[in-house]
């Protein structure tokens, strides 16, 4: 892709991001209840105190002006103070991001590691027992409510067998100095195998819950793409050239089949952000998703607004990345 085309694509994102900001603002503005009263809580306050706070927060200005102030602040990463934490919203959010990133990456890894081999095998042995099993499995995977599957896992592995911890990210006394803030990596950097094992044991159930659901979708994409690739003339020609079966499947068919798989994986990673809220709540995972759910119940609206905006922006960026990835993988699109 030429730099010009890239610039054009990036420019196309602007109206979408702007629209998302408008919706996030409107959502907040329409929220019933006076933010000032929520912030002051049950504490007795005088009308003067309330007016002063309202003025401080800029809530006495006209809506359009407030929107532009909000937009300007948002662009500089300032989402105001968190009602509950009494700290800048952005700080509170950033603290929680690494846990969510670690969980998302682990889920993505599980999804790809199950979906690609299964999808390929199902396509190669089409209508065989493995194909049928994988098809049923993926149907179950997309039909399983994540929160319930998580609870089943907890009942089996944490409550019944007691081999995995119920919630959290790592045990007491196993904390390691933060470098990347991804515990699996930090524990290796610190040379603490016990911490690594603990982090892994905490990660495995939430990552499985998210990863298998995504894997179910990716498996079908891989299978369909692989079936399509295997029906192409270039496979017959590759066979006629005397190439080994491994090379024909593993290179000629797979490289073409991976184009849609990787693209869908990037898009689905965006959907994982939503799934994170549920799974983090079920497993008490101290990430952004749980923070947002807590904030909703605490009526901590600035935080909810900032998180919605951040999620939506990430989602748009992931879709954009999927677009770029598709272009990069597919020589035919490259101009």
């Amino acid at each position, binding site marked *: 892709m030429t730099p010009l085309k890239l610039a054009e694509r990036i420019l196309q994102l602007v109206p979408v991001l702007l629209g998302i900001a408008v919706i996030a603002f409107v959502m907040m503005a329409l929220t019933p209840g006076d933010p000032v009263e929520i912030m002051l809580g049950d504490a007795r306050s005088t009308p003067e105190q309330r007016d002063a706070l309202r003025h401080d927060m800029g809530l006495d200005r006209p809506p359009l002006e407030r929107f532009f102030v909000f937009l300007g602040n948002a662009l500089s990463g300032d989402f105001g103070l968190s009602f509950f934490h009494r700290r800048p919203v952005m700080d509170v959010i950033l603290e929680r991001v690494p846990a969510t990133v670690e969980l998302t990456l682990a889920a993505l890894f599980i999804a790809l590691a199950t979906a690609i081999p299964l999808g390929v095998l199902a396509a190669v042995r089409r209508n065989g027992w493995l194909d049928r099993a994988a098809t049923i499995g993926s*149907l179950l995977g997309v*039909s399983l409510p994540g929160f319930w599957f998580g*609870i089943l896992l907890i*009942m089996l592995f944490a409550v019944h067998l007691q081999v995995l911890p119920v919630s959290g990210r790592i045990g007491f006394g196993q904390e390691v100095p933060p470098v990347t803030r991804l515990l699996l990596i930090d524990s290796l950097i610190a040379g603490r195998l016990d911490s690594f094992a603990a982090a892994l044991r905490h990660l495995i159930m939430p990552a499985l819950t998210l990863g298998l659901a995504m894997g179910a979708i990716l498996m079908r994409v891989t299978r*369909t793409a692989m079936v399509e690739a295997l029906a192409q*003339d270039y496979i017959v020609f590759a066979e006629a050239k005397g190439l080994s079966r491994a090379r024909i499947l593993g290179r000629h068919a797979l490289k073409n089949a991976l184009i849609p798989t990787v693209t869908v994986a990037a898009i689905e990673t965006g959907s994982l952000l939503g799934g994170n809220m549920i799974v983090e709540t079920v497993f008490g995972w101290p990430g952004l998703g749980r923070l947002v759910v807590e904030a*909703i119940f605490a009526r901590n609206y600035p935080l909810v607004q900032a998180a919605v905006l951040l999620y939506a922006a990430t989602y748009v960026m992931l879709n954009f990345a999927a677009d770029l990835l598709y272009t990069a993988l597919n020589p035919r699109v490259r101009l």
Partner: protein
Amino acid sequence: MSEAVPALSGAKGIDWALAESPIAGNLRQFVRDGAALAATATVAAFVLLALLAPLVAPHDPAEGDLLRRLQPPAWMSGGEWAYPLGCDALGRDVLSRMIYGTRVSILVGVLVIFFAAVIGTLAGLAAGYLRGPVDIVISRLVDILLGFPYLIFAIGLMAMMGPGLSNIVLALAYKEWVLPCRVVRAETLAARETEYVEAARALGASRVHIMLREILPNILSPVLVVATFRMAHVIIVEASLSFLGLGVQPPTASWGSMVADGRQFLLEAWWVSTFPGLAILALVLAINVASQGLRDAFDPRLQS
């Protein structure tokens, strides 16, 4: 290779193109698909259960008997057949609550899909047929709404509007209409160039007439297909919202909130969470299988 196969598929194409109308052929193929038929029957059973809940449910879903707190299912020791799937922490019958919970899932699924299909179809028709500024506004709105992850949009709206059945329906329909809208817009763009539309235009038919009477009947089958397979998703999202406590409020029974209720008692009362979750799985799975069958039979372009 290249020679034998087209000849064969050509031969296959002839006999049913001549034999019957396309819709009859689609229906026949759908009926032949045993799994899809069984799934449709399952969905119908759930709908019936929702309609007849007061007649079928053995107990009042909201009335608890604290003496039966966390009473196990009938086949376990301490259980009794009057409460086949046991009782929850307030001593309410799990089975009766599940039967009433069917109402929430089905009602939300049907209403959201209905609103989304109506709004999406009208918006898609307008965008695709009128083009110009109408199309630009609608298409931009679609792009922006697609920019939100589904669950986050719904959670944000629920946080704003507060919990409740009608709010769930609104929160989900706000975004759900986008999908039928995109399908209808694309179909309309194609249909407006066809001969029957040209003919209607030449005869001086009004734009509303052309959109609703000429184009709409011809693009209904993809809308139907999209709508059914989205319903499964809507039901899961409703259950997820209710699980988080953002859905219908107690004491109304919903599968998602029932799973949440049982979370504190995983050690002593696994049944409270397990059975409602199983019901979600069964209904969603049945809808998915049935819609897959519909897709295969009615719209080959959407086949996965």
